[in-house]
């Protein structure tokens, strides 16, 4: 599978339908790379003409801004917007809710106005349009799954249904955790917490959330954010060696169903 960059599209004098914003986690983190590859595979199979920025992509600045470093954020935003506007990007899809939130809500005030869409919404649209065709042997059918809401997708941007609709399209049994949707408990990674030790307390936040996920006794945990994925995987691993509930991104689940 060939993944083209914007520079390559430009050289051919073409414009892609959509830019896939991979994000730092999706580019560098080994676990998140699998999500990136799964989503790229889906785009490829669904015949979507997409491009990535490749080496020209840089951190959106989200963790710096939330930690309080507005200078760093503005520097990154300036560079990214220069590149995005230079390529005349209209539509962006991203697998990271943090990149999604920043690109969608925070770049417009700085001169970067794009139609930004999260990959769960994009997948839901592809399924509805019949562009994603599942194989006949749907191995997900009847399997139970609990979906962990990402704060930056859920409360921050009120996207609760798209990821659930995608799972339901595979005839999976959706089991909700005690706290879900607008009441969903954070995984503990947001607000730049991913990049520091947790403050002292009685319990780690990801352990608390992992307990709620384990309580559903679902076969799988679904996530839609690379950071939630890491936190939930670690939380479940630390909690109970016997419980081997796998944490999978919505894109990975779909990718497996079309292969």
């Amino acid at each position, binding site marked *: 599978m060939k993944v083209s960059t914007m520079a390559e599209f430009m050289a051919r004098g073409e414009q892609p339908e959509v830019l896939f914003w991979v994000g730092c986690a999706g580019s560098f983190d080994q676990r998140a790379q699998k999500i990136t590859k799964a989503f790229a595979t889906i785009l490829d199979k669904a015949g979507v003409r997409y491009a990535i920025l490749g080496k020209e992509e840089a951190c959106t600045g989200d963790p*710096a*801004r939330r*930690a*309080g470093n*507005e200078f*760093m954020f503005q520097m990154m935003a*300036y560079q990214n917007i220069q590149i995005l506007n230079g390529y005349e990007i209209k539509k962006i899809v991203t697998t990271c809710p943090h990149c999604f939130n920043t690109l969608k809500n925070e770049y417009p005030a700085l001169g970067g106005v794009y139609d930004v869409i999260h990959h769960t919404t994009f997948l839901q649209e592809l399924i509805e349009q019949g562009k994603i065709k599942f194989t006949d042997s749907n191995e997900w059918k009847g399997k139970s799954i609990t979906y962990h809401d990402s704060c*930056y997708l859920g409360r921050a941007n009120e996207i609760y249904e798209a990821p659930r609709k995608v799972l339901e399209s595979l005839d999976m049994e959706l089991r909700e955790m005690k706290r879900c949707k607008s009441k969903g408990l954070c995984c503990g990674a947001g607000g730049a917490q991913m990049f520091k030790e947790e403050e002292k307390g009685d319990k780690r936040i990801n352990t608390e959330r992992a307990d709620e996920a384990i309580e559903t006794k679902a076969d799988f945990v679904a996530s839609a954010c690379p950071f939630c994925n890491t936190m939930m995987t670690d939380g479940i691993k630390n909690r109970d060696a016997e419980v081997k509930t796998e944490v999978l991104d919505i894109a990975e689940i779909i990718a497996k169903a079309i292969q």
Partner: protein
Amino acid sequence: MALIAELLFGLISAAAFFLFGKNLLAIRRNILIGKEVSLNDHPSKRWKNVLLLAFGQKKMFRNPLVAFLHLIVYVGFIIINIELLEIIVDGITGSHRAFAPFLGTCYGFIINCFEILAALVLIACVIFFSRRNIIRIKRFISKDLNGWPRSDANAILITEVVLMSLFLIMNAADPESNFLVSSYLKPLLKGLSESQLSLIEHTAWWIHILGIYAFMNYLPYSKHLHIILAFPNAYYASLLPKGEMHNMVSIQNEVLYAMQPELAPTDAAAPEKFGAKDVMDLSWKNLMDAYSCTECGRCSTACPANSTGKLLSPRKIMMSTRDRLEAVGKNIEKNKSYVEDGKSLLHDYISVEELRACTTCNACVEECPISISPLDIILELRRSLVMEESNAPAEWNGMFSNIENNFAPWKFSPDDRDAWTSQA
């Protein structure tokens, strides 16, 4: 005698309203210490928020039972206060049930409604009191409320119970009355002479109205101020997606001028203070939030940091902001304008450890029934910490330099950003 009573009543009423007005103006002055932000866009959306969140108490219904009890107290409070009009007219003119002749049979119906509501309010307040003191619900026994805030909450509930009882006793002691609820209290007063009954009725009437005035003047000092401020707070609630942080135009421009020096104006103004160190660096909406907070603790219950034992409590962020604002207000009253007192909201009232625990998950903002944003204050204080004091944990400093040098929060080579494509 009657004339003296009428005069006295008039004087007390005037004093009560004067004092109340004075305190409200002081609160208004304190709120306006905050920085100017314009929140007048999209008036139709804002009025919708007032209707749904303030009048409709939409968010309260995330917990239907409590919402129902609260609705009773709220409706009861508003409707029974209509009866206050008559009580005040009676007090000033010396009349007895001044509205009865005008309303005819309707009068009985209306008072019956008031009495039913009064009884329901009384029951709801008793339930609320037991939730706090007998069932001891977690968010009410939190250390956030130690001391005055806990007494404040109980004082309000007890006052409500007393006021409602007085209203019912007053009606029961009126020999000519026969109302729905108070008629059941009449047997308690059986055997008393007409003059004794009249004394009870008048005493209940006086304590009731004095209690109401006391309650009114207690409001500005109490968490109960939300009965007024919930309405403007809902109107001025943020209409942005919850994930969006406020842009700092000064820094945006500074970066722009560094990148494109030809755009820099020659008379560039000195940069303002970055973020918020004290209450005057917050917006007036942040400060109104602090005065509106009812200290119910829904935010802290939902907070992932608080519920896993971290020091951060969004409710305490709001209470600390109000405490600091009150101190600054007193400072201004004493010195005509604010005189440096060596204290600030950051460090003296809200600690670094609290701020560091926030995951910016917006659970506190989502839960608040009256659209308060503790997160907004936390983020402004974090900006001050990092940009004014260079105060960040070592891991964050590492993250900043990685972003600066490698364009990612981790130390990877930017050349490997698309390495995954070769395995795809």
